[in-house]
């Protein structure tokens, strides 16, 4: 298993390099000279040349790219922001915590609420609860994130006065953004959990378990739910990447100074180092989430785990067995 994780971590390197190369190339193709933008008002040709040299823009594009990669690898130097004149790594570090907090809480809410409602819907299939939950799930999966955010602000801030409409501070500031971020994933998880559970509940071994007198709670959680987990994990994994990558919508609506907002501001100000750094970090987290999803498969299904643990020797053994059979 460790070997597999290390292998996956190593594969992340070319993936991130590819992302970096694409972003770097796009940035270079967009019109607008960062040196001129940084100089702003009146400037001489000498000042312009000096600025280009200071920003490293006078070098060959390939050299610029490799200088950047070298800086990242050797001392996590993501460059200096053209806009704020501060190290991009520092800017990202000061914001990543906020985005992670938002992402982690929304994941927890998604998993807890989504799975619970999905199981309930499956167990109470075709009941009023089931219909209400599935109908709401469809509505919220179709509703755009920013609309849900605005509606929740109107209800919970303006009308009820329970939570603030924007900004950062205590836990109250996190409630609405977390819920809004989780709502769409919850609806997908609910539907997937329900479908998956219904498939499993109708299997013969569940009927056998019930016939043997196993308590209903154990039948649902120990036998049915565990076997229904794989598709649920797939959906959760996919949604988590959406949560990380799409946080800028919620951050923007709720004025949360996270990494998504940083990316938006960087794009608007043509702040290349900040764009590259932010995309790199976001890509890293997407890779990590994908890895964690795959590891979760292994823990949910022993058959998958067995492929990671000594899979090669088991395969040889099977081959050997077949040869013996032929003989």
């Amino acid at each position: 298993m460790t070997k597999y994780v290390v292998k996956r971590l190593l594969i992340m390197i070319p993936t991130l390099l590819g992302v970096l190369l694409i972003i770097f190339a796009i940035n270079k193709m967009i019109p607008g000279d960062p040196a001129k933008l940084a100089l702003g008002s009146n400037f001489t040709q000498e000042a312009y040349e000096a600025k280009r040299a200071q920003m490293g823009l006078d070098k060959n594009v390939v050299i610029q790219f490799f200088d950047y990669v070298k800086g990242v690898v050797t001392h996590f130097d993501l460059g200096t922001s053209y806009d704020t004149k501060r190290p991009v790594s520092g800017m990202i570090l000061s914001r990543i915590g906020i985005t992670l907090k938002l992402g982690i809480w929304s994941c927890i809410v998604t998993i807890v609420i989504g799975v619970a409602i999905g199981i309930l819907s499956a167990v109470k299939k075709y009941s009023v609860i089931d219909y209400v939950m599935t109908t709401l799930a469809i509505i919220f999966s179709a509703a755009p994130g920013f609309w849900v955010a605005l509606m929740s602000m109107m209800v919970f801030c303006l009308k009820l006065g329970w939570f603030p409409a924007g900004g950062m501070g205590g836990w109250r500031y996190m409630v609405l953004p977390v819920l809004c971020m989780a709502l769409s994933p919850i609806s997908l998880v609910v539907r997937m959990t329900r479908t998956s559970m219904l498939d499993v509940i109708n299997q013969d071994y569940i009927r056998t378990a019930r016939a043997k007198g196993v308590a209903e709670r154990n039948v649902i959680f120990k036998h049915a739910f565990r076997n229904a987990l794989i598709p649920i994990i797939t959906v959760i994994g996919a949604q988590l990447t959406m949560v990380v990558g799409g946080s800028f919508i919620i951050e923007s609506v709720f004025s949360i100074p996270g990494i998504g907002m940083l990316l938006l501001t960087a794009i608007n100000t043509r702040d290349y180092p900040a764009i590259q750094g932010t995309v790199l970090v976001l890509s890293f987290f997407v890779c990590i989430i994908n890895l964690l999803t795959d590891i979760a498969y292994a823990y949910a299904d022993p058959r998958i785990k067995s492929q990671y643990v000594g899979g090669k020797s088991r395969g040889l053994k099977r081959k050997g067995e077949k040869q013996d059979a032929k003989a």
Partner: protein
Amino acid sequence: MKKQLIAIGLCVMMTLSLAACDGSGGSSASGSGSGASGDSVTASGTAAGTSDGLGKSTEEDGVVTIGYVGSDDACYPSADSNNDFIKQAMVYDKLFEVDDTTGEYTSRILKSWDWTDDKTLVMTLKDGITFSDGHEMTMDDVLFSLKNYIDQGQATDKYQYFQNIDFNKTTVSDDGKTLTLVYKQPYGPAERTLNVAIMEKDFTEQHEASDSIWYTAPVGSGPYEITDNSEDSYVTFTRRDDYWDKDDYTYDAKQITLRFYSDETAMYMDYQSGNLDAIYGIGDTTVSQIENKGNQGTVQYVSNNDVSLLMLNEDNQYLSDPKVRQAIAEAVDMSYITDIAYGSLGKTAYSHFASTFDCYTKHDGYTYDPDDAKKILKDAGYSDGEITLTWLSPDVSPQPDVGEAIQAQLTEIGITVNVETYDLATTLGMYIDGEGDIMMMTTNGGNPTKEPYVCLSAFASRAPFTCMSIEDETYNGYLQDGMNTVDESQRWEAYEKADQWLYDNYNAIPICETLSAIAYNDRITSFDQSAVGKGCIGNLKLAKPAAYFTESGT
């Protein structure tokens, strides 16, 4: 089937209850939307002031929370020309300021100042000025602050202005109280461009401009200091009870938290629900909503001291002809453009200076007459549809709307306009490269001292935005005349001539002056006019001010 119907019914009820939350509050009283410079409109009743633990500030005397649409910036005046004016005015004292009502120069930190000749300004510092870390201010700090604008490169417009200072001949007296500032040539805008925040030399030398301490704990001599900061989220200023000049200047609020919003909707909701005491720099829609509802506090308007202009690129083969420029000036309905651009926060301009400027002259304005404009073009030999121009603007409101409106109006006189909008950074780069035929530009409202040179030099010869620069010798001569004299009457005369020249030659067509608006609840009794522009937001008056801490413990 029955269960399905019940479920659908429940969902419909929930949706309707959500919808019922919209717009049910507030009366629909007719609003008094007009906004003149410095006006305030007080709505009857009280603003929402609920206290549920969120807006703790609303419970405590002297604690105020203000919302602002914008981002946080370092409180390092000479390295950043963005939105840090608000923070600067709280944390630092400035060398010079201009009194909004009299137009006179004032200085809180100077005992006296005098021009000994037209190139030498001698300034003497008051005694007992202390920074928040306890150090006493000397003229070394003042000189360092000025030089630092040069050392930081072209980060601010001060870099350009201070090129005129001869730092080799500038001296500080031995006692550190007198600064003899020598200019290379007579420089008219001197005092107005010396409205700089004074930084402590030792502290600044210890911390680079990129250091996060400029967000969290900058050291200044101003009436407030930063005591809490969450970057791009909020910054809390606490009043310095040891402020060196508190006998002359008192501040009601002992703590002001400035909250940054990326979106005005969220800010307005927080204001309505009582989480904010004031909202700063609000747009026309929010202003109208507050005034129409009638119970959401006071709206105050203040001039931004700027004018939005329609700039015509004289390098374009058609726009180099004054007749074409005149036709455009007559074909554009300025009042309509003002309305769609700024609504109640704009008023039609009749000069290249805001009406708040000392050298303001109100012209008659160009008459909106598309028929005459068409005739001018025909007489000048241009056929219908011959002229095609490009509108170039950032995709930032209200510029694209203005572009489309001008496109429609110029189509009526046979001029085709292609509207091109890009993100701000790209557009600025294209302006520098001389692209674009018609643009909208706002004169430098970031200059709180209302210096005419700052406004007009933006489109002087060799201006950075090549597409807007005017190379005419007469016009540039007037600007030089105004710049190279310290005689105020001569300066105003030169700028009035420059303004008249622009008016007569249709190079820069004034569209409108803009206003800023701030709304505040009844915990605040008044907001200083300058605070709505670029002054100190600490200059607000509270219904229940917080007493200063004294040795007796009050």
